[in-house]
């Protein structure tokens, strides 16, 4: 029997539980020659803001042991150009479009939500967790009250599915709860972890933005623990993110309580990662004789409860 791996998040139908994480797959169409995009469950776009953003000064990426630091600083073409130039081209591939939105003020998020509500966009992912911004970003997601108020504003203006993407903060539980209480349909976690790399020859930070966000296998155990904890206290679904490179990585997240996962750093290495990981999940389910992926969600916690 073919294992059932599709799911529905507040009306958003996903044919498989593996999504490309925002910022690691461009606007999707960069990869159309190489990746059969229609096989992906959805596209999550590069983070978008009201006005175009130039981003941080280079270097913007550096590799570290088992991980990658990036400091792109939300470079993007702005919502207007996105709607005009990119959205119609993504739509050609017949997959749901999830637009990741960011801003420096809560009003900016609200305006973006209002604009995108009128477009053919299935869902929003509200980025209150970017570690590479002076204002907004993780500064919002580290404070339950501000996080909640951003989600409330977006919820008011956007009628379809809303994800809140939150940072790996110490107070992640109250932040996640606040997002749920203000109407988020799902929580994506974690974003990258703010970190630093130094060049000992020049005796300066390697990244132009000084600090960067750590991603990749190095953060997987942290992300797993947070998915476990947050999914314990929420009623809405959790989407797990953090260093997923293989099907087995994804299964770990699902067993810890995630209903779906996002793949980030692995996309930079292999743009086919999402599809390969989906295959890996199916093979695992076949091997274990599991018919429906929902049987696996949070299963590792059964003994705890």
């Amino acid at each position, binding site marked *: 029997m073919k294992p059932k791996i599709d799911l529905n998040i507040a009306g958003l139908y996903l044919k498989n539980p593996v999504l490309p994480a925002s*910022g*690691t*797959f*461009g606007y999707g169409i960069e*990869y159309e020659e190489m990746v059969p995009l229609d096989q992906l469950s959805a596209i999550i776009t*590069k983070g978008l803001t009201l006005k175009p953003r130039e*981003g941080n000064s280079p270097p*913007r990426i550096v590799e570290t042991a088992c991980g990658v630091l990036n400091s792109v600083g939300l470079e993007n073409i702005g919502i207007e150009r996105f709607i005009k130039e990119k959205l119609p081209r993504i739509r050609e591939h017949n997959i749901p479009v999830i637009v990741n939105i960011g801003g420096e003020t809560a009003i900016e998020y609200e305006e973006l939500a209002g604009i995108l509500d009128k477009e053919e966009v299935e869902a929003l992912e509200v980025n209150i967790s970017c570690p590479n911004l002076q204002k907004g970003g993780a500064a919002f997601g580290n404070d339950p009250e501000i996080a909640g108020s951003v989600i409330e504003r977006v919820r008011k203006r956007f009628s379809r599915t809303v994800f809140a993407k939150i940072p790996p903060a110490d107070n992640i539980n109250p932040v996640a709860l606040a997002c749920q209480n203000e109407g988020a349909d799902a929580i994506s976690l974690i974003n990258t972890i703010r970190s630093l790399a130094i060049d000992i020859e020049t005796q300066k930070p390697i990244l132009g933005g000084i600090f960067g966000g750590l991603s990749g296998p190095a953060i997987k155990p942290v992300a797993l623990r947070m998915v476990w904890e947050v999914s314990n206290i929420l009623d809405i679904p959790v989407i797990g993110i953090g260093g997923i490179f293989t*099907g087995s990585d994804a299964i770990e997240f699902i067993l810890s309580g995630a209903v779906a996962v996002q793949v980030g750093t692995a996309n930079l290495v292999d743009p086919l990662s999402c599809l390969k*990981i989906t295959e890996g999940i199916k093979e695992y389910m076949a091997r274990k004789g599991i018919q429906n992926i929902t049987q696996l969600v949070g299963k590792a916690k059964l003994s705890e409860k």
Partner: protein
Amino acid sequence: MQSAKCKIASIEFQEEVVPGCFRMGLSGELSGSPGQFFHILCDKEDFSYKIHNLPANRLSLKKKPILRRPFSIHRLREGGIEILYKVKGIGTRMLSLLKKGDTLNLLGPCGQGFRIKETPAILVGGGIGVAPIFALAESLKPSSVTCLLGARTKNELLLTKEFQGLGINIKIATDDGSCGRKGNVLSLLLSHYTHLKTIYACGPLPMLSSIIKFAKENSASCQVLMEERMGCGMGGCLCCALPTKTGYKKVCEDGPVFDVEEL
């Protein structure tokens, strides 16, 4: 899984040209033009990865580079390419340990190569920056080319014989004066540049900066191959940003070769 851009190639040979600097021949369905690059996973293609389900964590526990590394095309041959690289970090170190017959996973050809003009050419290669310059030299008529090579010392000079083998007139500068003129290649450029020649350059950033400045002051036609720390190599992650007159451009997609007028 191979697709239009993702390829598996096998190593035909690997040789240490000068200490710490390697030339590798790769065979497979590889094509491209001078100035373009391949984005290479610096480890043996792991066929077990194809079953998608390694034991948990195996990938992360193996001490190996995560991101791909970009390598310019050094030579285009029938049925393959060659790359020329210097060991700088863990990626190039891993690559240097691979042997004939090992297979590699490549993305490419990536980016925009040199746009060849009809005019006589001055090629400038500093250090390992000669790698893509050689591919360009092979595609030009030798009699219309002057090649300026720079290195720190005579021992680090690369490809002098190979350029001469193409019948190209070469001029050399070394920082310590152990070969050719003492000083940097810019001093050679000052002596050999004449109006109507096109400059094509690749090398360390200080060298390129001085060439860019020279080209702008002299309104010279000039193309430079730029480097930046890179993520995906496909224009998706926006990590390899290069400041230009019209804002940041992507080295991987808009470059790596840029016209000096853009900068």
